[in-house]
């Protein structure tokens, strides 16, 4: 039931809903119907109006056609009139041209004037048969002439700089002026300007040195002169391109001439620089100079400026090498002076100065450092960043002939020569060169021969990769030269030292009165002095040279008994004897001995060792003693004194020489000669001689 009621209630509700819906939509239906009716009405009205419009349009078209037909005539006339107008304008321009030109000229608007003139020229040319145009043309020509004149005037006055001048020239060219003449004038003016630059540069050079440094100078020259030249060249080429090769030649000649002046100035400046020391600055200046001149290179190829510049750089480089060589030589001489002073000083101070070995080391190192410094300085010329370093000269000849041959080899040679000159000059009177210096130089040369030369040359070859194939001095030749120098120096040293000792001995023999001398009690002081000096020389030489080889000596060298004089010998002849027992003619014996003993070459070349040097000195000294003894006459005690002296020498000198036999031989000879020169030859007992010597 409930559900039925519910259903009924629901049905009722649905019915009422349906009723309201119907009511609501009914209204809408009515309004829609109304609208449709109204639309029908409106469309009908519109159709009418459209029809009217169409008729109206037809009327309008008709009218327009009629109008255009009427206007056709007018249009044509107007076109013609416009043409006439234009022509008239042109004519007016022509007629006004003279006055305009005049005005332009007065105002200075030359460019405008030239453009007007250019525009009018052709027309005037064409119609010149007409009198009126003729008049205009004449006028124009007059004005143009004036214009040209003014332009020229301006051009001549110059001063306003290259671009403006170039403009003037351009205008003048446009005016149809003769190009050749212009180009001459152009160059004349350019020359004037450039010469001003040059004279400014020259003023900087000045007679007095306070010029700016060389870098600044080349900079200024580069920007001022070379820059100007570049501008001129560029403008010239642009303006007178039509001139063809002849114009180019002119420009080249021009550039060549001015460039020549410029180079002269630069060279003068660089010459001032030669004395100075700073290589890097110079190289930089040269680099700038060279680089700057490479810029106009393509433009002025024909003028050969680049080549000349390179030549200058090469020349400077060469002079630099010469300068360095000189510097090295001076340094070497300076070292020698130092050594001389060092050698002279200790004697005054009484204290031991630096030893010879130290001096040698310092000289060697100082020379070596000088060489290295020079090499480094010269090396700047071949640095990669320097613009001229890739020139063939700097890659080849500079390295091999210049640096290696000229500088290094040249220096070593001159060093040898300087050293040798000590041998030649000091030969007279001996004293000029301290002997220690000779010894030191000799060792220095020998060191060079053994090591330093090859080291320096290797260093050079490494630093300057020599690509040149030209022949260079081989190391062996130089070494041979150095060795020869060392040998000569050492030989000379031996001579000088030998001479010193000989002089001592000679004086001692010559000044003494040997006839009335007293019985010897002592060894004479001079003999001790000789031994002392010899020992000193031995020490000195030992500092620099190796010991060397001696002949094997008998164990009792120092104990050798002095040759015994036996009164039983015939004819009062005294002779030394190595076999005292043989009772034969000692004169004959000594002669036979001489036959078998080798001839003693007194001033013979020495070898590079201490023993050889000392042997040489002792040989010279003893031979002198021998000759001097032979010139004197001895009393009995004089002979005995000689005997004592010789024994003393023999006791101390044998240890210095290579072959002690030599000392014995010479000393025996001395005593024998003294005995011969003695009217009363009574020699001393050997034992007494020995006692005296050992006491002394």
């Amino acid at each position: 039931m409930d559900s039925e009621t519910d259903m009924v209630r629901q049905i009722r509700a649905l019915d009422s809903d349906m009723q309201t819906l119907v009511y609501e939509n009914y209204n809408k239906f009515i309004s829609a119907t109304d609208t449709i009716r109204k639309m029908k009405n409106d469309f009908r009205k519109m159709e009418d109006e459209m029809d009217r419009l169409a008729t109206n349009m037809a009327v309008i078209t008709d009218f327009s056609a009629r109008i255009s037909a009427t206007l056709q005539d007018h249009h044509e006339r107007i076109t013609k009139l416009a043409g006439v107008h234009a022509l008239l304008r042109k004519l007016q321009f022509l007629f006004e041209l003279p006055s305009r030109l005049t005005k332009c000229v007065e105002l200075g608007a030359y460019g405008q004037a030239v453009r007007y003139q250019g525009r009018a020229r052709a027309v005037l040319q064409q119609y010149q048969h007409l009198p009126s145009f003729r008049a205009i043309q004449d006028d124009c020509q007059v004005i143009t002439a004036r214009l040209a004149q003014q332009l020229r005037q301006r051009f001549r006055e110059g001063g306003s700089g290259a671009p403006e001048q170039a403009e003037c020239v351009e205008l003048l060219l446009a005016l149809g002026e003769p190009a050749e003449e212009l180009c001459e004038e152009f160059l004349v003016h350019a020359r004037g300007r450039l010469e001003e630059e040059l004279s400014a540069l020259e003023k900087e050079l000045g007679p007095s040195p306070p010029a700016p440094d060389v870098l600044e100078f080349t900079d200024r020259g580069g920007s001022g002169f070379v820059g100007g030249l570049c501008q001129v060249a560029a403008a010239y080429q642009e303006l007178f391109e039509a001139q063809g090769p002849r114009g180019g030649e002119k420009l080249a000649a021009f550039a060549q001439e001015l460039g020549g002046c410029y180079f002269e100035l630069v060279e003068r400046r660089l010459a001032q620089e030669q004395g100075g020391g700073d290589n890097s600055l110079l190289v930089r200046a040269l680099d700038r100079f060279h680089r700057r001149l490479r810029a106009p290179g393509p433009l002025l190829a024909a003028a050969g400026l680049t080549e000349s510049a390179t030549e200058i750089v090469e020349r400077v480089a060469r002079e630099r090498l010469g300068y360095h060589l000189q510097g090295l030589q001076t340094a070497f001489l300076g070292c020698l002076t130092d050594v001389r002073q060092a050698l002279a000083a200790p004697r005054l101070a009484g204290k031991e100065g630096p030893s010879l070995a130290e001096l040698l080391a310092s000289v060697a190192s100082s020379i070596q450092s000088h060489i290295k410094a020079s090499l480094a300085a010269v090396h700047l010329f071949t640095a990669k960043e320097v613009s001229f370093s890739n020139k063939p000269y700097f890659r080849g000849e500079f390295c091999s002939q210049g640096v290696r041959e000229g500088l290094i080899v040249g220096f070593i040679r001159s060093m040898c020569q300087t050293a040798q000159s000590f041998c030649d000059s000091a030969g007279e009177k001996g004293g000029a060169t301290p002997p220690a210096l000779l010894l030191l130089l000799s060792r220095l040369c020998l060191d060079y021969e053994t090591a330093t030369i090859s080291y320096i040359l290797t260093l050079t070859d490494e630093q300057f990769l020599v690509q040149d194939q030209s022949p260079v001095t081989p190391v062996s030749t130089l070494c041979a030269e150095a060795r020869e120098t060392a040998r000569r120096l050492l030989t000379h040293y031996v001579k000088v030292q030998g001479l010193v000792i000989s002089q001592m001995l000679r004086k001692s023999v010559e000044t003494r009165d040997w006839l009335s001398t007293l019985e010897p009690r002592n060894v004479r002081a001079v003999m001790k002095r000789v031994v002392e000096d010899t020992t000193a020389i031995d020490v000195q030489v030992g500092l620099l040279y190796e010991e060397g080889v001696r002949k094997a000596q008998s164990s009792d060298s120092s104990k050798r008994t002095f040759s015994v004089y036996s009164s039983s010998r015939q004819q009062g002849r005294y002779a030394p004897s190595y076999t005292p027992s043989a009772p034969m003619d000692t004169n004959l014996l000594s002669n036979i001995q001489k036959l078998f003993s080798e001839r003693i070459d007194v001033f013979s070349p020495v070898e590079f060792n201490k023993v050889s040097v000392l042997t040489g000195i002792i040989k010279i000294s003893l031979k002198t003693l021998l000759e001097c003894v032979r010139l004197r006459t001895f009393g009995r005690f004089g002979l005995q004194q000689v005997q004592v002296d010789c024994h003393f020498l023999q006791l101390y000198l044998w240890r210095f020489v290579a072959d002690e036999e030599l000392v014995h031989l010479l000393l025996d000879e001395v005593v024998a000669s003294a005995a011969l020169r003695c009217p009363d030859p009574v020699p001393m007992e050997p034992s007494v001689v020995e006692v005296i010597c050992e006491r002394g």
Partner: protein
Amino acid sequence: MEDDAPVIYGLEFQIHIIDFDDENNIINKNVLLHQAGEIWHISASPSDKGVLATCYNKTPDSRVLACAAVWRMPEELESVGHESPDDSASTTQTLELLCQLGSAAPGNVACVTWEPMGDGKKVISLADNHILLWDLQESSNQAVLAGSASLEGKGQLRFTSGRWSPHHNCTQVATANDTTLRGWDTRSMSQIYCIENAHGQLVRDLDFNPNKQYYLASCGDDCKVKFWDTRNVTEPVRTLEEHSHWVWSVRYNHSHDQLVLTGSSDSRVILSNMVSISSEPFGHLVDDDDVSDQEEHHAEEKSKEPLQDNVIATYEEHEDSVYAVDWSSADPWLFASLSYDGRLVINRVPRALKYHILL
């Protein structure tokens, strides 16, 4: 053909006249006693072959005195010499003293030199630092001092050697002291030139080129022989450095002045050919016609080697120092040298060179 040689022999001082017979190669010796003392220097008169001057040492009361004297050799010398060739004892004769030089003047005489071209009347002696010109009068029996000059200076100056130039009318004398050479004019007895430091050490001897008036040679303790043009005293014309010890004597050949002889205490005698500074720098022209094979050979040699100075020969016969060398005055190709051990060596110029020079 005649060589005079002093030899010290015990206490008897003798002069040996050595006769060398070229054709037979025979040597004859005559011994003359020189009783005054040991002889240090000897020079024969250019005009009279029997007269000679010596410098000698006397040793009175243990002092050495060097004196000079002029002597005459005995007349009969030649004949005696030929008859007894090798017996010195029997032929001993004595020199006759003509006069003493400088008994009045002090000083040790180092050297005596005769006027080369004159009549043998003028002699110069060098004593210490004096140069004394003597005039020999009355057949050389008296010597009168005609002029003198002396060397003043620091230290003790002593002349070591001197020569009389054969040029300029015999008015020039050259002397050596220490390392210096000096030229003197004998008319005024004044110095005309001076070569300071002619040698590094003592100058031992000098000689004039017989054919070129300004040239002279000197030698000394620096082992060198130097040739000088006296018009230029700063530089020697040429220097020879062949010896290895003091050079004691230098002599030009009397007729071929390119030949120079030197003796040294390295016991060598060296004969040098100094063509370039001789009076015949280009040699003689060779005659082309009829040359024999041998001569052709020499001519070839000559053309091959240009004329240049060289050492012709080194003579090593001596065992000890050579103190004197001289050329024969009779044969220009002959010379003698004397050494300490008393050995006298007579040599000839090599035959090849002789022909080279002559042809």
